[in-house]
């Protein structure tokens, strides 16, 4: 197996304090910001994501890695903006109207961010109109809806309908404890995922299909 780059390794181990120097070393060596993100940081988070999926580590450990990556992005983001580089994919996520459960949704958002997506989190109890408004504003590739109550499943249906009625082409992924693949299909969502780990695969599958 190839030895991992020290920056990749620092992300994996969550050694946040070492990250700024390592990023600077990459920049000094002539690497551009985009390739540092793609070739050094994202592979680190991919390893962490894999370990998590295999139940080798827990969310707290994963968050430590995510914070290390964030440390790098603090330096790299201004450079990316200056170079006009944006993450390849943007997603909007929120818990539907009437529902305050957000831990699952937050975990999905975290996993998506780890896969280098820009994620705009609308929070909880989000009315359909707010989703539509945010989609019009941010033009995301993907929208994620979460619902945990049986009595807010209808709000998920209404939200999907409102997004479709607005005529904006966007892929919709849904999830949450009472949601099933059948329900997702029935309400016209494009994708469903049963947990945060597979939410990345579900998103990437849809985004690849789009491309």
């Amino acid at each position, binding site marked *: 197996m190839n030895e991992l780059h020290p920056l990749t390794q620092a992300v994996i181990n969550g050694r946040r304090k070492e990250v700024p120097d390592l990023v600077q070393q990459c920049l000094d060596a002539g690497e551009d910001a985009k390739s540092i993100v793609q070739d050094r940081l994202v592979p680190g988070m991919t390893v962490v994501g894999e370990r998590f999926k295999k139940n080798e580590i827990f969310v*707290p450990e994963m968050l430590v890695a995510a914070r290390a990556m964030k440390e790098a992005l603090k330096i790299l983001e201004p450079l990316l903006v200056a170079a006009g580089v944006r993450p390849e994919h943007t997603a909007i996520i929120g818990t539907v109207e009437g529902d305050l459960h957000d831990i699952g949704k937050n975990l999905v958002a975290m996993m998506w961010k780890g896969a280098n997506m820009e994620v705009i989190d609308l929070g909880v109890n989000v009315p359909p109109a707010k989703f539509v408004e945010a989609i019009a504003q941010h033009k995301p590739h993907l929208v994620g809806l979460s619902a945990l109550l049986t*009595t807010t499943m209808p709000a998920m249906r209404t939200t999907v309908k409102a997004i479709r009625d607005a005529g904006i082409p966007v892929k919709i992924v849904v999830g949450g404890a009472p949601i099933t693949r059948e329900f997702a299909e029935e309400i016209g969502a494009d994708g469903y995922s049963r947990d945060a780990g597979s939410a990345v695969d579900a998103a990437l599958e849809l985004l690849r299909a789009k491309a």
Partner: protein
Amino acid sequence: MKYTSLAIDDPAELIFGVAPHPLTTREGMVIGGGTVYPELNFTLPPITIDAAGMAEVRRNYADIIEGALGRAAELTAPGVVIEFETLPPMTEHPEWGMEIVNILIEGMEREKARSGLKSVLRMTPNDNREFERPPLMRRGRYWEAMLQLFEGSAAAGAELLSIESVGGKELHDEALVNGDLAASIFSLCILGERDMRFLWTHLNDIAKKHGVYCAGDTACGFGNTAMVLAEQKMIPRVFAAVVRAVTAVRSLVAYECGAVGPGKDCGYENPILKAITGFPMAMEGKTSACAHLSPMGNLAAATCDTWSNESVQNIKLLGGMAPTCYMEQLIYDCRLMNCARAEGRDSARMLQRWLVESDVATDPQAFIISPESSVELARAIVGSDSHYHAGIAVARKAVSLLREANAAGRLRIAGNEAGWFDTLDDTLDDLPDSEGEFISQQLALADSTKFIAAEYGLT
């Protein structure tokens, strides 16, 4: 701290069906007086709750109560507790919640007249305060509507008042996913304690006015969130178990403010509270898998006074409508426990032991609420001089109990969890002795956009 000694200090006496301070309902059910009663809770299938949908909502609840009580009467249950845990719009519009309360009470009275079945209604308005972000904990329309529903249902005949209150939760979700025990103690023992005291003082006034009981609260949004996260392998089970122990400090405050049980079903911390207060407790376990999975389906029954299914949707199963099926299951679970009791102390003890032994070694969360651990944890709480110190003491005790059991091979802990014992102990070692200093530290670290310190009496 109001409680400075234990009501039950022998794990063998921390047992199903009996509590040192039983509670007698208007119809003469004696909860904690030697009989375990089934406690049924139910919820709606996918339906929109709004003015237009209320007819269907009413129909659902009318069908649920008729079907479930009919079956309870056929199976000659000694009495049943019916819990009405509202869904958010029913608390936001108390008049809708009241419509359901009246439907349930009418159903219960009708069954009493028909078959003589005794029943009592536990009313659990849901805590909508966090619909506002950051939440207003002591004022505003959500607070007002919630109190209105409590008051209305107490006046209408709901004899047991409960809630799954959310004070302190604004910071606790984050504490859980970060594995941050210090922030958990801040949420539970500083913010939670203050909110509980405020809330339950008000509920106690309502209960007194209408001659009903404050039953109890649960740290569901804290301990059960941790438990579910651990079940999903998101956070270590060891951490979730320690958090559970700390939740007892928060839930205890309801009893310090006048609650007398039965404690609310999803409070898996209830065995610790039963040891401290001597009040009867509801518990849930294997028969609540319809609502969420748990690692202690049998063990949870070892100390219960009412036995609950937590929540089931009103959907059709092969045996009948789900609430009716669950009523049946609960009744059979209770029959077994009551049969053991009827045979005498030794038989009851034997069943208690089997319920414990069948789960205790398999999971830290189960281990931590076993009668033996519960008594030790309870002792750590009552030996403390403040809720903050009680939080530290009970967490420390929980870590040491788990560590010892693991070392002695009495508990199975996954390899990737063992390192967490040291992490948790290190966190506890670093906490200041002074509560004021701890509060300042945590306020400096907390995300101030998420909560309003003044709503907890902190500035």
